[in-house]
């Protein structure tokens, strides 16, 4: 039969062997699967340190598998979607990063598995910041670090545009800043969502949405990841944007403080826990527990905050993140470039994570329906309103909100928002409302269909023409 083997089978055979070798999992005694929106530097530092620690403690090799399905919102949708398919575990041990609110939400759905952290370690962690807990008393989630929310800006661009450095969120809503604001899509980026939620809670629902809508109208676009915003600010594509503290500080280090500035609006923002949790049905619960304890221990906490190359610090990447261990701030001195102690930070309000997590998805949908999807109309409407005789009154129409805070909370807490039908109906009606409020020009809509229609006619013409000419028919 050998003679009958198809040609190329030698190559095929050798390929299958290589294939098998390549696709076989790397050899390791233990495994840990982590789902995380954290960037490469964080992953690499924690992987290196934890692997070494695990080896030292247990003598076993651990292989950490980092899954990437996108930003925090993508991860949430992914977890939900996967659990709907495999309810007793989705093959992931830990969800790492993404703020506080997602954990509150995931806990509510029962997707988290509580794990008890050694009290010796937990005692050194602050239980809360600005009134917001840093870990769940049931042990389902723990803040691994913290994030502050603020505005990054390009000093040179602002100078060229004749604009002042921003102080508050409302500065981004100023008509002068039109097209010069960078922001991400809150439906994709957890941190940008968080920023908008902070604005809502800082200013209150009505005024908050007014500011958000105006920021949206000023926005250049809505990128998928919040990390794009600092880059756009640095290249001069936009003048300022919403950014988490560490992205902004990293950009300041990269581009220089003479070009890039960062401000956390006084009294109007918070520093918030950035959590981690074991997922229900985690395949490696014991190792997951060890990882969580490691991150919360001083060894893990030093990785966040120390400069690159310091003893016990990160080796390849400076992470520049807050630690949740308050006593470290005073002790580190020059060994860290984190100059702010968030525990001394005062907010003008107390952030409510329960409310925030309940309406997480609703706020995103509303933002999408009235700001992102009809963005062109929103911008045009705002331009028109500013030119109008009474700008303030004209703008009121634009900023009219289709839903009150009570209604929103009602919808969100009744879990009506989990019903795709209800959700889609609301989104559609908001969207239609918004388009009407922004004075969408139906003629313009038709115009946009024109190229496609013309092309279709041309295509059909070409097809008929060629058909008539093709041989055997003429």
């Amino acid at each position, binding site marked *: 039969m050998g003679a009958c083997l198809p*040609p190329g089978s030698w190559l095929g055979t050798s390929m299958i062997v290589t294939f098998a070798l390549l696709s076989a999992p790397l050899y390791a005694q233990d495994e840990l699967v982590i789902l995380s929106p954290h960037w490469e530097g964080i992953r690499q530092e924690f992987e290196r340190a934890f692997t070494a620690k695990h080896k030292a403690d247990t003598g076993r090799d651990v292989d950490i598998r980092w899954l990437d399905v996108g930003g925090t919102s993508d991860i949430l949708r992914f977890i939900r979607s996967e659990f709907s398919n495999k309810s007793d575990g989705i093959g992931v041990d830990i969800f790492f990063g993404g703020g506080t609110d997602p954990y509150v939400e995931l806990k509510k759905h029962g997707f988290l598995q509580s794990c008890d952290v050694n009290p010796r370690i937990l005692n050194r962690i602050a239980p809360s910041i600005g009134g917001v807990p840093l870990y769940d008393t049931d042990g389902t989630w723990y803040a691994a670090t913290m994030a502050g929310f603020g505005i990054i800006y390009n000093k040179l661009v602002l100078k060229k545009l004749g604009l002042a450095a921003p102080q508050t969120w409302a500065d981004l809503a100023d008509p002068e800043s039109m097209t010069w604001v960078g922001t991400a899509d809150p439906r994709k980026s957890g941190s940008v969502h968080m920023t908008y939620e902070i604005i809502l809670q800082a200013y209150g629902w009505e005024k908050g949405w007014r500011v958000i809508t105006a920021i949206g109208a000023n926005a250049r676009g809505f990128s998928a990841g919040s990390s794009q915003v600092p880059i756009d600010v640095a290249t001069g594509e936009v003048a300022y944007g919403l950014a988490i503290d560490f992205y902004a500080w990293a950009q300041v280090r990269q581009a220089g403080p003479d070009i890039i500035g960062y401000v956390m609006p006084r009294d109007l923002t918070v520093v918030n826990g950035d959590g981690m949790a074991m997922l229900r049905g985690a395949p490696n619960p014991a190792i997951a527990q060890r990882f969580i304890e490691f991150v919360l221990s001083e060894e893990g906490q030093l990785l966040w905050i120390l400069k690159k190359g310091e003893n016990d610090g990160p080796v390849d990447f400076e992470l520049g993140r807050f630690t949740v261990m308050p006593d470290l701030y005073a002790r580190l001195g020059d060994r860290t470039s984190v100059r702010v102690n968030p525990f001394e930070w005062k907010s003008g309000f107390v952030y409510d994570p329960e409310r925030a997590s309940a309406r997480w998805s609703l706020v995103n949908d509303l933002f999408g329906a009235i700001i992102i999807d009809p963005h062109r109309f929103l911008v045009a409407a705002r331009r028109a309103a500013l030119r109008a005789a009474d700008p303030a009154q004209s703008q009121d129409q634009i900023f009219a909100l289709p839903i009150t805070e009570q209604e929103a909370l009602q919808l969100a807490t009744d879990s009506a928002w989990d019903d795709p039908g209800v959700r889609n109906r609301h989104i559609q009606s908001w969207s239609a409302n918004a388009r009407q409020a922004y004075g969408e020009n139906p003629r313009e809509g038709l115009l946009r269909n024109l190229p496609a229609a013309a092309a279709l006619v041309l295509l059909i013409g070409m097809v008929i023409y060629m058909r008539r000419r093709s041989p055997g028919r003429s």
Partner: protein
Amino acid sequence: MGTNMRALDLSPGRLAMILCLLVFFGVFLIYPLIYMTANAFIVNGKFTTEFFRLMITDPTQWNTILNSVNLGLAVTLVTTIISLPMAAVMARHEFRGKALLNGLVLVPMVLPPFVGAVGMRQMFARFGSVNLWLLDLGLIDQPIDWLGGGMLGVVIMEVLHLYPIMFLNVTAALANVDPSLEEAARGVGAGRVSLFRRITFPLMLPGYFAGAVIVFIWAFTDLGTPLVFEYRQVVPVQIFDMLSDVHENPMGYALVVLMLVMTLVFFGLARNFMSGHAMMSRGHVTGASSPLSRPATIATHVAFLGITILALIPHFSVILTSIADRWYMTPLPSLYTSKYYAMVFDHELTTTSIRNSLGLSAISTALDVVIGIWIAYLLTRTRIPGRQVLDSLAMLPLAVPGIIIAFGYVGTFSGTFLDARNNPVPLLIIAYAVRRLPYMVRAAYAGFQQTSVSLEEAAQNVGASPARSIRRITIPLIFANLVAGGILCFSFAMLEVSDSLILAFEQRYYPITKAIYNLMTRPDGPFIASAMGVIGMALLMAGLLIAGRVLGRRMGELFRA
């Protein structure tokens, strides 16, 4: 062996090959398409067209579709405007430096638009190099909005990448128009205009159509470029976004079906007309071409060089970005460095991804070579039934965009041992292989056709089995074709965007493109990403040069419907 088998030209070996191929195509091409179609129409066990209705009734959805169509149309239109005159001059005239210009046209292809976009954003930002330069010169007092908030940048980027493909197709179409037909028409007194209208245009139209279809499909389905430009209201990006709740929201499947139907229809039309066209005018390719006058030659050179320089701006900006140490708010970098290249080679993410891409591409290329040889063998050397089907299956990936294949794999193989979330290596290899298989089949097919069957028969006659005679005689003889096809497969696999972004979930399996996409989120991301892009560019350029040298003018035939 029964008489039936003999009549069908089947031997056990061939039967095994056909079965392997059918299983391969069935599992990795047809089944995912069926799976997605079924999921788009059957939700919770009930048939529904709800999601297709939504596409039209929901203004946001409709707008997305419209954006994609308009994007595809704009790219097709602009590439046509650029390529048509260029091709006309090339196909009909002789002049000094023609070969050089012919080669120059292909240069823009070496940069994946996805990477080019990184550099473009650096240069064409509102306070990027170009505007700062113009502002410094006092030519403008307000920054020009080059990227126009999305679509424009994507169109420019894709046009600059795709016009060579259009050029190759139009040149081939014109070369296929037998000049003697034109001369004959002139002989009977046809004027220039009526000559074009009656002879040249109808004869080249199918060839042009094929090129236009490829360009349209490419632009319509490209994921990487809109993603980097953050122009998210297009169908491929929407599909990409639907990935995370693939189990809960069938809208992704519905969009895939819409895209698939469109590409299949266009592709089918193009194939249909190309086959008729081949009968009309194949054969006479060489013909009288008239020399150009000196001024016309200079004008041609200026035009070609101008377009090439324009097309190379993204390349230039990527190279510049990759060596910029500080490049903020200055027309050119204020400090230069090679550290980003060093980082490429000592960071875990980048080194792993380069290793992964090399491995994945090499294996997928090997797979392509084997399958390509099998298919070309079956098509040229046997009279087995269903060869047409095999041919169509092998060419189908040209019409099935990478994003559809990748999206289909995620859904179809979820929960099986091939699940990309556990280990994307097998599916990545297969996705790369499937995507580029048509190029390999065409290259191998051309080789088999050029090689006389009697050489194999002579080998069998002296005692070599059919498989051995292919291996020892035909394969060495068509090696150049296989190398050329292989290089194309390999280079494209190295820079495959949608499959890589969608299928590789885990950092240790990231291919180069996914690493680049990931790196962009770092503050120094654009610089490292550009350095990787330059390396990729060098690689693809070398690949295309070698392939072009080996294949010569047949190169153009690989890039058409």
